[in-house]
């Protein structure tokens, strides 16, 4: 992961967001991933989403585990604090950071090896705690940095570059997240920025744990004939169910959609996540039906995308913990330490 600073070029007339920042202000170091890697497209989508939402980079913390995917936080938001942790352990670091600083927006970037094998436990528990984090899994079905072993998301029957067939069952992070009581489970494709950018925005503003599984082909080890995570396969088998977008509180409804096509999920600050049904049969608020839908399409070898399940009412990590609204690091020492008199009083009971 060599680090090459990206030159920031500014010119008159480049587009600025409401903070006066350009897209370049949301970029990071130069990517050292393989040319054509799906992960770089996700990085670009993240940059765009943050820029469009006009979030201050210093409001954001970006965390990752180990693997190709986990290198990417170095490639966006150079103005944010970043944390490249150990393999499979991003969720626990994000949990601790969130406990300390609930005011910061946490973005966790992981991969299929990082979250579905070595870090499966931590992934599961971040979801079940409904931790306030956008949890992106850059899913390519393969271990890239160690040169091409199958990961736990590889489909049975999928073939490795050298021809070996995967015989193990695949773990679907979206189905797992829904089963675990997740509040936001989505899937997208690195090659579909139109879908991915609004989904990331919705995930960022969602108050709990927003899991986005992004199929992100590995051009070097898993983009061949016989792979079910290649660009070609994914494009042929995509099945969009529900598109999602984030609508800030102040925005007036401008576009008319056909009756029944849209549902708004209202967030507590008055903003909305707008759902647009592509597949009329789909209901992203029903857990059983969502799982049923996923299963039916999996059997047809289709890759279902979109916001597949959402429940804004589930209590989040901080709701459950009862943590103060003010970030814990912002309390004065006097508000934390009970003082000498309280200690003396307490010790009366120890005699």
């Amino acid at each position: 992961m060599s680090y090459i600073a990206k030159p920031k070029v500014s010119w008159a007339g480049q587009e600025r967001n409401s903070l006066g920042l350009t897209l370049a202000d949301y970029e990071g170091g130069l990517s050292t991933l393989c040319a054509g890697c799906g992960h770089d497209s996700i990085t670009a989508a993240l940059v765009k989403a943050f820029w469009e939402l006009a979030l201050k980079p210093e409001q954001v913390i970006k965390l990752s585990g180990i693997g190709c995917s986990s290198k990417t936080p170095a490639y966006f938001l150079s103005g944010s604090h970043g944390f490249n942790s150990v393999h499979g352990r991003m969720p626990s670091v994000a949990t601790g950071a969130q406990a300390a600083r609930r005011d910061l927006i946490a973005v966790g970037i992981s991969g299929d090896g990082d979250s579905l094998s070595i870090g499966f436990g931590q992934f599961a528990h971040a979801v079940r705690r409904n931790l306030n984090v956008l949890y992106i899994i850059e899913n390519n079905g393969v271990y890239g940095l160690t040169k091409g072993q199958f990961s736990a998301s590889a489909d049975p029957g999928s073939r490795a570059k050298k021809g070996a067939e995967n015989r193990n069952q695949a773990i679907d992070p979206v189905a797992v997240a829904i089963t675990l009581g997740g509040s936001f489970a989505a899937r997208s494709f690195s090659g579909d920025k139109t879908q991915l950018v609004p989904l990331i925005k919705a995930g960022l503003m969602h108050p709990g744990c927003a899991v986005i599984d992004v199929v992100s082909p590995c051009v070097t080890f898993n983009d061949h004939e016989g792979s079910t995570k290649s660009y070609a396969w994914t494009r042929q088998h995509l099945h969009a169910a529900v598109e999602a977008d984030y609508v800030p509180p102040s925005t007036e409804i401008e576009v008319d959609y056909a009756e029944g096509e849209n549902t708004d999920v209202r967030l507590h600050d008055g903003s909305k996540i707008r759902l647009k049904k592509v597949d009329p049969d789909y209901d992203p608020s029903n857990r059983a039906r969502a799982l049923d839908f996923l299963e039916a399409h999996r059997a047809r070898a289709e890759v279902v995308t979109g916001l597949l399940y959402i429940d804004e009412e589930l209590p989040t990590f901080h709701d459950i913990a009862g943590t103060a609204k003010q970030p814990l690091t912002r309390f004065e020492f006097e508000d934390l330490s009970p003082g000498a008199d309280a200690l003396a009083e307490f010790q009366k009971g120890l005699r």
Partner: protein
Amino acid sequence: MPQPAKINDFVLKIATVNGTGSASANGLLMKALFRMGIPVTGKNMFPSNIQGLPTWYEIRASRDGYNARTGRVDVMIAMNAQTYARDLAEVSHGGYLVYDSTWPRDGQLKRDNVTVLGIPLARMVNENFEGSRVRTLMKNIAYVGALCALMEIDRDIVRTLLEETFAAKPKLVEPNFKAVTLGYEYAREHFDCPISARAEKMDATAGKILIEGNAAAALGCLYAGATVGAWYPITPSTSLMDAFQGFCEKYRKDPDTGENRFCIIQAEDELAAAGMVVGAGWAGARAFTPTSGPGISLMSEFIGFAYYTEIPAVFFDIQRVGPSTGMPTRTQQCDLMLAAYASHGDTRHPVLLPADPKECFEMAVVAFDLAERLQTPVFVLSDLDIGMNDWMVDELQWDDAWRPDRGKVLTDEDLAGMQVYHRFRDFDGDGIPYRTLPGSDRKGSYFVRGSGHNQYGGYTEDADEYQQVVDRLKLKWETARGLVPSAVERKAAGRTDIGLIAFGSSHGATVEALDRLAEQGVAVDYLRLRAFPFGEEVEAFLDAHRTVFVLEQNRDAQMRSLLMAELDADPQKLVSILHYNGLPVPSDMIVERIGDYIEQEAVA
């Protein structure tokens, strides 16, 4: 056989079956003695089980204030027929054994020089109380009553304690006191009271408290301003987080909103607990995790990560018997090496070594300051003996003027005055760089990575850049040497070239043993280690003595190895005294070992 009276100097041991509620009866006995002004210590020897296995509780009263185990048992309350034989065998010459004679065992319970007293506890209790659970509990309270008669323990104090215990349920006071009276009257009627081992009011507990190390450590976390605690339940550390939770509920709730000024997370495993602590420390909170040896094994990956990325974190290791699952409810000092060098690669960590609950409180506070000052993981190495037993210690003190040392943290104002910020540059020559916290100005952002990095915080695979950083970490280690608590020396009355090094829960037994040896004319200087890395005073002590005993509670002489590895100490002069059977170290063992060694040396 008339015995010399053992006034305020006896060991009372209670053998019961766990899950029968004996803990409250034993606590009652101990506190009654304490309130009589007699120094006491309680040691719980319990099984890794919830109900049905043998368990022992040992109360030592010592008018001289000694708190260690001795090899002695003056009075045994044998409430568990399963262990009668071994309990009887353990009673010292001239001692007593009290048992439940509802089922007489007079033939079986016979030993020369031990007086066996049968009290029909179950029969009396069954005649006076209804319900099997109540009867089981009352049987315990009844032996407390019998001991009040036999050992002259103040019954009024027992009554007051019952009233305090049941303040919320006053209806329970009378039945409990009735059980006390049953035992008391039976003993008065049938035996010559008092027996030789007995209590007498004195005034040696003023300004003292009875507290467990884990509760004291939790108080330390509270007072140090720790806000994030992450943990995975493991004996014997669980009561530390339980206590912290309790204190936070009491002292850390917003008086108006009821909001928590703390966040306690029960993690999915110890790996996650460590990750949470590291994440919170990075984000600027004071964060800690309590665990035991097996937990440290699992946390080791993150410990090395935090060492290399320079993130403050506090780890409480309440040691238990290893290796592996070992004996989870028994004590040892077996994680010394593990803590000192936890994780792969070249890693070293400051380790604090509290000797009793009071130091658990004080060192918890010091640990958070050190972790932030040094930007590194810090261990507090307690053990089951300190953590889970009630110790009598001086009342804990707090200075309201104290403020946490947050170390070198740059604010946005600091950043505004800087051209450029680099995370790992050493400006002060002490090996400690400046950190910024997430949320601070864009100029201060940096990328934490466990992979090779240079002093600017960038990724590197460059040989020189890599080495510069790890060499600076070594310089930081030298700085740590001057910041950790110093060892404490207790000089013998006369000049001697014999020294002894001990630490942690061995302290009480050591002091007692050295007093005994002094009475026998053996002078030994004593250095109590309080931290790793070792300061100059440790080197000086080693240099100043011809022979240095190293007392520790593990099989492999870990502290001795550490002294040899870190200070280049001469192996010839370091003589190990090892105790590692899982029970707290007894003072008489130390007297014997040092006595034997000196005798042999004299012969040779």
